[in-house]
């Protein structure tokens, strides 16, 4: 994997976000550099949900944050609705960000414990309301109702009086209140119980339909990502492995790493208890990533070529791209 390349970029009028050659590096002291995201490109169409999936340390959250310019990427471009974000500064950038909101993994710690729910949700409006002309208590109440909270009951409470699932609803309300075009969801359900997870995933789908949102959904659980996404990118150690529509990705994963991710999901059916081998070892250090394909150190199909040449994304099925020298056969016949 370790794929670069742009074969998967779409040439469409509906492209809302186009990320090209995105590089994010962090200094690690003593002249060393953490290669968090290394030269990845992708696009998101208007109204689409893009899933980013991979293990901890694969750069999926960094990618999401770099799209928001939090922090600014080391290199590459992020074009949002035709505007280049990486060169924007000050007020222009802040104004742009009102249209691109974020939801985080831990709903409890992403809410200020000392503030009331109505103030938390109204924060964006109280800053921007006068300029976009929509500040009103009604707007706050309407948003709280939309996410399934009763404004009468919750407005004057503080975050500690709510469960994790309810806090995540508050976070979603806070993101929605400025009427954004895009919401970047960074592991929004991984801190929640399965029963609450289902509620939040359903809510996100409802909100997407109601407000015409475009979502970037980041998670480590492929089953969750598959449920909400229109297109999935599998990432590993700052690179892209595979890009595909979710159903094709599950039916015939082309990249060995995708196969492993699918096999890792615990199946709630004892008759299907798999004897699959768990992936061996740990994700290598992003300070000194392997040459060639970055997945080669853990790949069951590794060859000499993988160490010398970095694979480039290429099409293996309709809308299905893989960066691997020796991909699994893609069942194109079933694809249709």
């Amino acid at each position: 994997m370790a794929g670069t390349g742009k074969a998967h970029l779409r040439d469409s009028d509906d492209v809302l976000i186009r990320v090209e050659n995105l590089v994010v590096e962090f200094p690690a002291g003593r002249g060393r550099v953490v290669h968090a995201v290394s030269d990845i490109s992708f696009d998101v169409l208007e109204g689409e949900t893009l899933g980013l999936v991979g293990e901890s340390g694969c750069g999926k959250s960094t990618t999401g944050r770099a799209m928001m310019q939090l922090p600014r990427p080391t290199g590459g471009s992020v074009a949002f609705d035709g505007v280049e974000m990486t060169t924007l500064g000050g007020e222009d950038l802040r104004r742009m960000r009102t249209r691109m909101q974020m939801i985080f993994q831990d709903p409890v710690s992403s809410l200020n414990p000392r503030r009331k729910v109505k103030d938390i949700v109204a924060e964006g409006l109280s800053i921007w309301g006068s300029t976009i002309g929509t500040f009103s208590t009604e707007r706050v109440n309407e948003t709280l109702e939309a996410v399934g909270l009763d404004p009468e009951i919750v407005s004057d409470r503080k975050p500690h009086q709510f469960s994790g699932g309810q806090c995540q609803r508050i976070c979603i309300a806070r993101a929605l209140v400025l009427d954004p075009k895009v919401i970047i969801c960074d592991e929004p359900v991984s801190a929640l119980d399965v029963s609450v997870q289902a509620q939040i995933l359903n809510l996100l789908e409802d909100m997407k339909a109601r407000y015409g949102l475009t979502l970037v959904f980041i998670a480590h659980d492929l089953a969750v990502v598959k449920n909400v996404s229109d297109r999935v990118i599998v990432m590993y150690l700052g690179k892209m492995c595979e890009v595909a529509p979710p159903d094709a990705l599950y039916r015939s994963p082309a990249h060995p790493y995708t196969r492993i991710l699918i096999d890792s999901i615990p199946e709630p059916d004892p008759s299907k208890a798999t004897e699959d081998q768990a992936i061996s070892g740990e994700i290598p250090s992003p300070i000194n990533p392997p040459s060639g394909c970055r997945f080669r150190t853990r790949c069951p199909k590794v060859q000499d070529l993988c160490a010398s040449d970095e694979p480039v994304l290429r099409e293996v099925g309709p809308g299905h791209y893989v960066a691997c020298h020796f991909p699994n056969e893609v069942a194109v016949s079933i694809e249709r």
Partner: protein
Amino acid sequence: MSTVTFRVVRDIGGDDVSTPGASGMPLLQVENLSTAFRTSRGILRAVDDVSFTLDKGETLGIVGESGSGKSVLVRSIMNILPRTAIIPPQTKVILEGRDTRRLSKAEAKHFWGTKIAMVFQDPMTSLNPVKKIGTQITDPLRFHLGMSKSAARTRATELLELVRIPEAAQRLNQYPHELSGGMRQRVVIAIALSCNPTLLVADEPTTALDVTVQKQILDLLETLQRDLQMAMILITHDLGVVAGRADRIAVMYAGRMVETADTASLFRNMRHPYAEALLHSIPRLENPSHTRLDAISGRPPDMVKPPPGCRFAPRCRYAQDRCVTEPPELLTTNEPGHSFACFFPVGTPEGEAALAANLAAGMSATGLDLHAQAVS
């Protein structure tokens, strides 16, 4: 204290099928375990009259949402609750013939670690950040088993190798922050196993980890358990985690055990609507994307004032008038070892009729809007 009332003993799940251990009795016997806490709002009944047994080498999966009482249950078994906890005298927790609730302080000190050990959810907070890994593994060896410093260090290296940590000897000199989450959890497991416990309690051991690492850790626990012939209690909120791994599963809701059976029969004949709802809320890979998930609406009840009837009734699609007023008992079915507490069980004529009546009316007896749930 007098305000706390506890229900009469009924069924002990799985007692009639459990094959006796080597000594003719189960390894762990929990009878009428109830735990309550005094809070400013009143008495909070976290665990309410739970009974079960566990044999040597057996794995019991305890499944339920946050707040279902599963963690308090195992902490009661280990006797590591805060002093404010109220446990009534009829509660018995017998491990290898000893009642853990009646151990003296001196006895209890060595009971933990050598008989029963625990792995917690968050491997970062269960390790001491300012002590080296080596010290943290050798401490129990020296304290419980009286090993010499050098013997303990040799054993610590062996333990790290046992949990498949590469370069074990060098790791002894590292601090927890130098390891990844998965490696830290392996260290926690190594510490738990250090004194050869007969029962390992794993409280959400993989919830904080990635799916790939989760599989590694669960596979490791399974292998170690088999090799060391330990019994294990595996707590999780995800039925998928226990499906292929536990011998028996107990589903808990609002402090009570609502269904228990061996794993195969639970998944074959799931009876309790809550167990079914938990299973259906898991996103399945084989479903096409954008499949609407069957979320359980609402939240678990306030345990200071639980509903008088079945505690799941307010969220249950099957609920009838009887469920609102009368609490169902945990009763054994004709299938040995399979018990559940429900008047209108899933997959029975009563249950089907109850669901059909509720669907026709558009709502359950508790006012749960079934139509909205299906559409919204």
